[in-house]
């Protein structure tokens, strides 16, 4: 009986053996998948070397701010308000499956306000793009924007995992 129980035991590797196994598996994987492992190393190097971006010079900074300040935020805010009220008026006069003359007029106003808002926004984006081109994608402005985007998606991925785990556990 005791003999059987002894035979049933699985001998776990010691800590040093387990470490050696992990190192061997990782090394074999790196040797077999050269593209993945070189991408990993290149990514780490990219993070270390360009992780914070190049600093803007005084001229670049001045020009960047000058162009950014030309973006008319007030005009965008007002256009956004006009569109919201026109949209509200259109929704209020619209029937379930019909749109009378008053509704048609409000619809035209809403579409006009929407187009105005879109034009103003596109103009703003174009100016922002001009300002960014002064700084450059490898500058601190570019790298910071990419990092913000990454952390946003990374956080969303973690939130998804937590939410999904919560539903799985219920």
């Amino acid at each position, binding site marked *: 009986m005791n003999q059987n129980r002894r035979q049933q035991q699985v001998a*776990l590797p010691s800590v040093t053996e387990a470490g050696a196994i992990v190192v061997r598996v990782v090394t074999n994987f790196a040797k077999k998948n050269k593209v993945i492992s070189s*991408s990993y190393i290149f990514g780490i190097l*990219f993070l270390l070397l360009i992780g914070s971006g190049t600093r803007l010079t005084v001229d670049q900074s001045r020009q960047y701010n000058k162009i950014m300040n030309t973006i008319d935020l007030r005009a965008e805010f007002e256009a956004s308000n006009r569109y919201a009220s026109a949209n509200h008026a259109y929704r209020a006069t619209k029937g379930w499956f019909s749109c009378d003359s008053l509704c048609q007029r409000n619809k035209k106003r809403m579409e006009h306000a929407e187009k105005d808002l879109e034009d103003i926004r596109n103009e703003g984006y174009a100016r922002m793009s001009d300002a960014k081109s002064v700084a450059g994608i490898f500058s601190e402005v570019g790298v910071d924007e990419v990092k913000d985007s990454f952390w946003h998606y990374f956080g969303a991925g973690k939130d998804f995992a937590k939410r999904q785990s919560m539903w799985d556990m219920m």
Partner: protein
Amino acid sequence: MFNLDLSFTPDLSKSRFMGIRKMSRDESMMEYAIKVLLQVLINFSMGLIGALFIFVFGLWGIVRSYQPNPLTALAFLIGASCAAFAFVSTYLFTIFGVAAGGLYGVAKVVETNARIQVDPGQRRQNVQQRPHWE
């Protein structure tokens, strides 16, 4: 005046740990814990790999807004994608490593306990055969 005390109202973050999936009849505690752990690890892998793909697809829009020349754009795109891949894979390796390390530790404790309990008679015999000065 009606006064409602909401100090003990559980919010969503607290209720997260209150509704843990029920253990089935033929499931041991260890089996149940490992299944829950695996589920959490799979969810994290899916969430983070999905986030990595969405980030890489969105990256082109950001790069284009800086109006770089095509070579610079390509270099930055590849570099940033590799950097994101490196970070996400390191994060996943770490959480998988911590989980595996924890399981290894628990298995070691179980193994040690099993070795002690395997032959109590043998231990008694060993104790009896010790020299009297020990």
